[in-house]
């Protein structure tokens, strides 16, 4: 059965953050930051492997990270790392059933208990902390 036959939304639908509130935004950011950190991890291993070329090779590669573009990338990595950590703790607790509310007879207009203020605060906290950490990183790297 083809994708069209199944009428699946596909990746475009999966990453669309506009329809289902801040939880879906967090879902997208979690995936993007996870992929970004994976890419950084691979790049970091490649970078540190340059020490096998001796001190000259190491210093030459390290100089790349001292450019404006290098600083900007590192600042984004800091933001991704902080968001992924904080939001990851929220999601892990949720996965264990912690903070998702208790089952109860639903009353109209049926506001889902699992989408409660604690989780929304967790998402906003992760975004704000990531932004603060990134700005601090930028201040340290560009402030000299």
């Amino acid at each position: 059965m083809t994708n069209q036959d199944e009428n699946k939304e596909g990746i475009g639908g999966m990453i669309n953050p506009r329809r289902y509130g801040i939880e879906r935004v967090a879902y997208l950011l979690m995936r993007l930051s996870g992929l970004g950190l994976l890419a950084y991890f691979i790049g970091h291993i490649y970078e540190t492997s340059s020490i096998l070329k001796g001190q000259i090779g190491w210093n030459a590669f390290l100089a790349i990270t001292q450019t404006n573009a290098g600083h900007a990338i590192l600042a984004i990595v800091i933001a991704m790392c902080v968001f992924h950590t904080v939001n990851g703790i929220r999601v892990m607790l949720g996965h264990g059933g912690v903070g998702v509310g208790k089952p109860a007879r639903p009353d109209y207009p049926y506001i889902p208990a699992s989408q409660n203020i604690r989780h929304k605060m967790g998402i906003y906290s992760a975004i704000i902390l990531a932004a603060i950490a990134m700005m601090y990183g930028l201040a340290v790297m560009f402030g000299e």
Partner: protein
Amino acid sequence: MAQTPSLAEESGSTPFSSSQSITLRIARYNPQHDSAKSFMEFQVPYEKWTTVLEAILEVKKHFDHSVAVRYSCRQATCGSCGMIINGKPRLACFTKISELNSNVITVEPMNNFPIIRDLAVKFERLFDTHHKIKPYLIRDDTEITTNTKEFLQTPEELEQYIQFSNCIKCGLCNSACPTMATDSSFVGPQALAQAYRYVADSRDKGKDNRLKIIDDSHGIWRCHFAGSCSQVCPKGVDPAMGIQLLRGYMLGFRS
């Protein structure tokens, strides 16, 4: 004495006499003939209580009777008329035009379900996955043989699962789920929430059996708690909560 209108007069009359109207865009697609989805537009009058389903039926009655749509109860009980309305999965009978705050209403078939024609989709996979998690009480004894007692429950035990028994199997949660958007084999929020409904039932003894079924690479671990399923549920079932509580059993947070 009031005169009863004839059948011909009744079927030819327009039920909406309002001066207000909206543009109803209906997705048309027949997998046997068409290569892609197209849209037909209709100007439909409406009152503040008119539902999207009534507007679609108005189109069928006065403009194009070939529009395919599945519906039955018209009161959010049968779960037949799920569709994408202005970008979000909703029940057409439970969505008033006036609450959408738009002069253009676009209706499309639910995502992640194969299309039969136009707005009607196939529910086979939904029912298969629902059946897969054994949606019934599992225990050795029975309450229907003679000399046996009924299975008693306290109100507190009932509260543990009653919310999840409201599921009408409309499929809106599966349509909104980001994992279902890419993974055809995923069990889906509807079936997982129903697995929790029976696991949490104090009369049921099939917990280990069900947890084994959903402990699969396309099972419960594919849920990433995006919560979209709960946001679109028209009955307040909150599948996301049920799935996380169910995962709590598997991770040892609950027993």
